[in-house]
């Protein structure tokens, strides 16, 4: 009799444990992801908006069920664009067992590239350097936007196709290109070889590079040098403030060229800082601007308003959308790897990213394809132009189709 009572007691205890214990055990089934951002350093003007976008996109992913039912726990840190801190935080991410890292700029991405390759941890960066797209060299570096080199080639091509033909000198002489950027900076110099190669293909004459510091707010001496060459187009490889300074000086000194601008110098702040001088400036973007009518943008806006209500949506930059793009491709890769039964870094790469063929991210991002031999996400680049203070989509350049014979040889530079 007494034995039966004890049996009953134990069965009850076990039942209660199962009833209350198991669900909480499931609730703890989370996947850790690290995020390195710059919210205080040299790139904080764009880095903060990107960091907010990362956090908001992860909220969305979790609301949509996470990785096949498992929620993501985001460990997001500001490293102030300081490499020693990025390396220190990377060690924390590995201790936390992070499955992937959402990185930031050229500095941290390049500094960590050998380490993530050794540790087989996917690193999804906002540095779109073409140097990171060859899996033979950097197999765990990934991003969702078209690379800087493709962007530079496409922007120059779009100008050639849409503007040069209407120029009074068309057919009489070669168009002229000059590059304005901080020559010692890896981000600024990343696509220079590619744009000069494209200039050669299209028959441009190329002038001497103008070294413009990222800190510059007075670029008159560089504009004077440019005027001697009389360029038709100027490629700007810097970030927003110094690009705005160059545009203002070029406008004041009547340079008369069209400005082509790389991704991190081309956003709403450029229009705010440069005003009229920004009119006509062209740039390749890797996604749509905030509020554009493209799939998933409604969620970008909804989550921005929900989680950061004190920042007006009008003040949010394209950087938010770029962050969403990277989170969306990582989410898809992790879902695929998890379905394959292996959520290791190697599997996220091979069973996830490298199985994506024309994957539609939405957000105005061209369909994304990664393979084991090519991590360039796309061949189609969207090119915008600023008219009356607004961004207008003017062209979609399909580099892979137009230069099918050269496309493979452009990998990794």
């Amino acid at each position, binding site marked *: 009799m007494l034995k039966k009572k004890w049996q009953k007691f134990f069965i009850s205890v076990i039942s209660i444990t199962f009833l209350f214990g198991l669900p909480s055990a499931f609730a703890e089934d989370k996947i850790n992801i690290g995020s390195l951002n710059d*919210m*205080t350093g040299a790139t904080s*003007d764009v880095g903060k908006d990107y960091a907010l976008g990362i956090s908001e996109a992860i909220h969305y992913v979790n609301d949509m069920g996470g990785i096949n039912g498992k929620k993501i726990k985001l460990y997001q840190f500001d490293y102030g664009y300081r490499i020693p801190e990025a390396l220190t935080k990377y060690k924390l991410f590995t201790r936390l067992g992070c499955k992937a890292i959402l990185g930031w700029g050229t500095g941290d991405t390049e500094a960590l590239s050998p380490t993530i390759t050794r540790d087989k941890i996917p690193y999804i960066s906002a540095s779109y350097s073409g140097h990171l797209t060859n899996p033979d060299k950097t197999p765990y570096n990934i991003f969702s936007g078209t690379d800087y080199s493709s962007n530079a080639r496409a922007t120059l091509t779009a100008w050639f196709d849409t503007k040069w033909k209407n120029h009074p000198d068309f057919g009489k002489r070669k168009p002229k290109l000059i590059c304005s950027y901080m020559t010692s900076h890896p981000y600024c110099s990343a696509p220079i070889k590619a744009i000069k190669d494209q200039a050669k293909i299209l028959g441009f004459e190329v002038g001497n590079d103008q070294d413009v510091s990222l800190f510059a*707010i007075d670029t008159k001496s560089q504009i004077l040098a440019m005027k001697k060459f009389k360029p038709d187009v100027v490629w700007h490889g810097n970030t927003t*403030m110094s690009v705005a300074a160059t545009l203002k000086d070029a406008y004041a000194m009547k340079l008369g060229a069209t400005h082509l601008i790389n991704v991190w110098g081309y956003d709403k702040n450029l229009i705010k800082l440069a005003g009229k001088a920004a009119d006509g400036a062209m740039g390749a973007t890797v996604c749509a601007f905030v509020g554009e009518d493209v799939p998933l943008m409604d969620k970008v806006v909804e989550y921005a308003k929900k989680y950061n*209500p*004190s920042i007006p949506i009008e003040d949010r930059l394209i950087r938010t959308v770029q962050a969403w793009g990277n989170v969306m491709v990582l989410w898809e890769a992790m879902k695929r790897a998890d379905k394959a039964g292996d959520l290791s870094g190697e599997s996220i790469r091979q069973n996830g990213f490298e199985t994506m063929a024309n994957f539609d991210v939405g957000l105005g991002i061209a369909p994304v394809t990664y393979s084991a031999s090519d991590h360039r996400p796309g061949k189609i680049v969207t090119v915008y132009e600023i008219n009356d203070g607004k961004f207008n989509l003017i062209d979609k350049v399909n580099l892979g189709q137009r230069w099918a014979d050269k496309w493979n040889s452009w990998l990794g530079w």
Partner: protein
Amino acid sequence: MYKKNKILALTAIIFAAFFITSCVATDVKINIAPTQENFQAPVVSLDYVDVAHYWGWWYFSKKVKPTMGTQGDYGAPLDLAFIFNIENPNPYPVKMDSIKFTIGFEDFDLNTVENKEIQWIPAEKTNQVRVHAMFDGRQSLLSLLVTGGFKLKEKGLGTGAGAALKQLGQWWETIPGFEFPIHVKQGAAVFSTEEGIIKVTAFEKTFP
């Protein structure tokens, strides 16, 4: 005897009724289920700012050889602590998942910090949270140079690294007395209930 029993019974009933009522009342208070409608966003208010650790102002460029360690560009760090009151007006506990805000010295946004250590705030109680913000002299210099060049010029401080260092020196040297406005802006604190209902509180304040 019979009457005495009756009084005792009546007293017992009254006590029992009082006991049951108070239990029910307590129960009701505890058992109000959080809903999207009844979940009031907790109130976040900046109580004060504290210079948590202070090293004064200095800056060494990489041209200066250090006594020990690596040669490089180094600026004085500054550790500020922001103390917030987090008031939960709800009759049930609420979890604070994160608190995030940007810090501006005058018109220059220098830092954005986020604290993701969760804490539970009991029903109708106020918690305090201390959020540290580390300002590195070198990092702040680069931030000012790359993003604040036009503003420095407008302020009449000139251009380039000299102007930015001058501005940083002024802030670092006068902050013990809080002689310039420190803006807490674009603040957002995320709260949730045990059931996963979420509310976000926006906040901002200028100190002092």
